[in-house]
C-alpha cells in the first residue's frame, strides 16, 4: 500500500470522527468561537490553550470539579422533569428557596454537624419540592403551562428570599444583605482531593447513578419516559400523567433545593441575597440536561465539560485577554448545533423509516 493511499485513509478516518454526529456540534462550536476570536483580533489557539490548561491544571481542576457539582445537580434535577415532558424552567427559584431554607436550618439549629447537615439538606429539599409543586398543580388543576408559571415564579422566589434575608434573617454585622455565617460544624466537608473538593461531588455522582438506575430499570422510570415521549399513549396505557407531573416536579424541586443548600452550606457559607441567581447555575444545568438529552451518564460528562469551560474561560480571560463570555457562546452554539441536527456530508434527517441509532437531537421530554 503506498503512502498517499494511507494518508487518504487517515484523512478519511479523521473525517469520520469529526463529522460524527456526536462530535460535530463541538467541532462546529469551537470553529465558531475560533472565527469570532479571530475576527475580533484575538489569538484563538492561545485562548483555547489557556482555557484547557486553566480548567484541568492546578487549582483549576478542583474549581472545575466544584463548579461541576451544582451544574450536574441542577441538570439532574431538570432531567427528571424534562424526560417526563414537563418543561420546568423554575430551577432557579427552587434552588434559591431551597438554599435559604437549608441555610436557616444550618444556622439556627443547634446540634452536631452529623445531624444538622442532613437536616439542612432535608429542609432545602422539602422547600424546593413544595415550591416546584406550585406550577405543577397550576398545570394539572388550572391548565396553566408550567413553562410559563415556573419561569415567573423564579422572580417571585427572588423577592421572597430577598425579603427574608433583608428583614427577619439579616446579619447586620456585615455590609451585605446576607444571613449569618454557616457555623463550621454545619458545613458540608471537603474531601482531601485535588486540594479540597466538596464532598457533595460524591453526592451528585450518587444521584447520577441513582437517576440512571431509576430511568433504566424501574417502572417509574419507564412510566415517566413514556409520558414524555407521548402523553396520549401514556394516558391510554393507564399512566396517571397528571399525578406524575406533580411527582416529577416534586423530585426536580427537591434536587434543586438540595443543590441550593449545597451552594450555601458547602460552598458560600452565607446566603447572600442575589448571589445564587447571579451564578446562572440553574440555567447552565438546564442546558447540560438538554445537551445530554436527559441521560444521566451524558449529564455527568456534559456537566464536567461545561464546568471546565466556565473555569477555563476565566483563565483564558486572565492570560489570553479573551473575554470569558466566549465560554458561554461555545455552550450555546453546541446546543444550537445539536438541536438543529447539524452535520456534514450526508443528509442526516432520515425519514420515518430510519432505524439508525444516532445521537438524538435535544428535545424537551424526548430521551
Amino acid at each position, binding site marked *: 500500500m503506498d503512502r498517499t493511499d494511507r494518508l487518504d485513509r487517515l484523512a478519511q478516518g479523521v473525517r469520520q470522527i469529526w463529522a460524527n454526529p456526536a462530535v460535530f456540534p463541538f467541532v462546529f462550536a469551537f470553529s465558531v468561537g475560533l472565527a469570532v476570536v479571530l475576527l475580533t483580533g484575538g489569538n484563538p489557539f492561545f485562548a483555547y490553550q489557556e482555557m484547557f490548561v486553566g480548567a484541568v491544571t492546578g487549582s483549576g481542576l478542583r*474549581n472545575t470539579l466544584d463548579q461541576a457539582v451544582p451544574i450536574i445537580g441542577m441538570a439532574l434535577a431538570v432531567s427528571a422533569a424534562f424526560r417526563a415532558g414537563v418543561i420546568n424552567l423554575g430551577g432557579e427559584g427552587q434552588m434559591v428557596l431551597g438554599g435559604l431554607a437549608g441555610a436557616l436550618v444550618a444556622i439556627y439549629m443547634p446540634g452536631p454537624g452529623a445531624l444538622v447537615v442532613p437536616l439542612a439538606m432535608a429542609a432545602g429539599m422539602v422547600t424546593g419540592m413544595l415550591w416546584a409543586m406550585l406550577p405543577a398543580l397550576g398545570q394539572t388543576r388550572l391548565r396553566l403551562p408550567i413553562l410559563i408559571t415556573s419561569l415567573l415564579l423564579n422572580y417571585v422566589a427572588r423577592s421572597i428570599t430577598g425579603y427574608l434575608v*433583608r428583614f427577619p434573617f439579616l446579619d447586620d454585622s*456585615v455590609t451585605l444583605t446576607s444571613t449569618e455565617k454557616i457555623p463550621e460544624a454545619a458545613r458540608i466537608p471537603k474531601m482531601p482531593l485535588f486540594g479540597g473538593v466538596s464532598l457533595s461531588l460524591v453526592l451528585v455522582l450518587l444521584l447520577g447513578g441513582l437517576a440512571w438506575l431509576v430511568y433504566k430499570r424501574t417502572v417509574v422510570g419507564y412510566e415517566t419516559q413514556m409520558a414524555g415521549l407521548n402523553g396520549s399513549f401514556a394516558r391510554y396505557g393507564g399512566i396517571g400523567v397528571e399525578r406524575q407531573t406533580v411527582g416529577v416536579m416534586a423530585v426536580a424541586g427537591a434536587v434543586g433545593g438540595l443543590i441550593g443548600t449545597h451552594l450555601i452550606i458547602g460552598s*458560600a457559607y452565607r446566603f447572600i441575597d442575589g448571589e445564587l*441567581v447571579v451564578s446562572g447555575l440553574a440555567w447552565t444545568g438546564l442546558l447540560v440536561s438538554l445537551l445530554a438529552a436527559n441521560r444521566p451518564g451524558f449529564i455527568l460528562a456534559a456537566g464536567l465539560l461545561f464546568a471546565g469551560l466556565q473555569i477555563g474561560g476565566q*483563565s483564558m480571560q486572565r492570560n489570553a485577554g479573551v473575554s470569558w463570555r466566549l465560554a458561554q457562546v461555545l455552550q450555546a452554539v453546541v446546543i444550537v448545533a445539536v438541536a438543529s441536527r447539524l452535520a456534514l456530508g450526508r443528509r442526516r434527517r432520515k425519514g420515518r423509516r430510519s432505524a439508525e441509532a444516532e445521537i438524538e437531537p435535544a428535545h424537551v421530554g424526548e430521551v
Partner: protein
Amino acid sequence: ADGEEDEGIDLIYVTPGPIGINPFLALGEVGTERAAERLGGTSKTFESNLDTASQRSNIEAAIDEAPDVIVLTTFTLLEMADEFSKANPDQKFILIDACPDDPAPNLHCGVFREHEGAYLLGIMAGRLSETGQIGSVVALDIPFFKRWWQSFELGAASVNASVENSVVFIGGENAFADPARAKELALSLSAQGPDHIFAVGAGSNGGVFEAAGEADFLAYGVDINECPTAPGRVVDNNLKLVDALVDQLVEKVINGEAGPVESFGLAEGGTGVMALHPDLASSECVIADHPDIIAEVEAAAEGIIDGSIVVPDPLFG
C-alpha cells in the same frame, strides 16, 4: 513573576465583577498600576464575573502566581479575603472597602468613610432643594449603602431640618448596570416631589442623569466626577479616591508599615467632593455656580476633619 529574586514588585488586582459596571473598580486598577509603576514593578488585573466561582478561581490563580501583594476590592470579596488570607499566611493581601472582624496579619484593609462626603452632598441638596424633598436611587438594599443615602439625608437635615428624604432601590437582575431601571425609578421618584436625587448605582447612574435631563431635577454622582457625563444636571459627587488609596496602601504594605485597617476619609484625602477639589472650575459640576454653598461645605468639611462635627457611620452605630 513567581516571587523569585526579581527586581521589581508584582501586584495582582482581582475584581468581584466586570470593571465596566463600576468606575470604582476601574479606579482600583488605576491605583494598582500606578503603584507598580512607582515602585518599579508589574501589575495584572483579574476581572471576575460577579459569581463566586469566577471570583474564587481568580483569587486562587493570583495566589498561584505568588505576587508581592494581591489587591482585592469591595465587600463582595470579604469572605474570600478572610478565608484565603488565613489559608495563605505568606501571601500579602489588600482588601478595599471592607474588613473582616479579625483580619489575619497578612491582610490589610483599606476602608473609606464615604459617609463624610455624602454628608457634604446633603448640605448642598438641603440648601438647593426648592421642594424641600430630596431622594436617593440606590443600587441595592444592603446595609453598606446606608453610608450614602442616610448620610446624605443627615447632611441635608443639618441645614434644613424640615427636609424630607425618600430612597428607592434599583434591584432587579442587574442592579449595578441597569440604567433603564434606574432611570424609571428616578423619574417616578422625582414625580413625587424630590428635586435633588443622589445616584448611588455605579453603572446604573447614567439612567438617573438622563432622567434628570427629562424631568427637572438635579443629581449627585458617586466615586468619580460624573458631572461631565451630564453637564448641568449633576451638582456634585461623593468622590472616593480609590486610586490614591490603593497606591498608598500598596507602598505601606510593601514597606511593612500598614496596619490591619486603614481608614480614609476627608482628613486623609481618601474621600471628598468636587466642590473642594482643585479642578472644580473645569469639573462641569453645578455646584461651581454656588460659591456661597461651597463656603458652607468647606466649613463643614473642616468641622468633620477637626472633629467638631461628627458624622456617624450608619454601618457601625
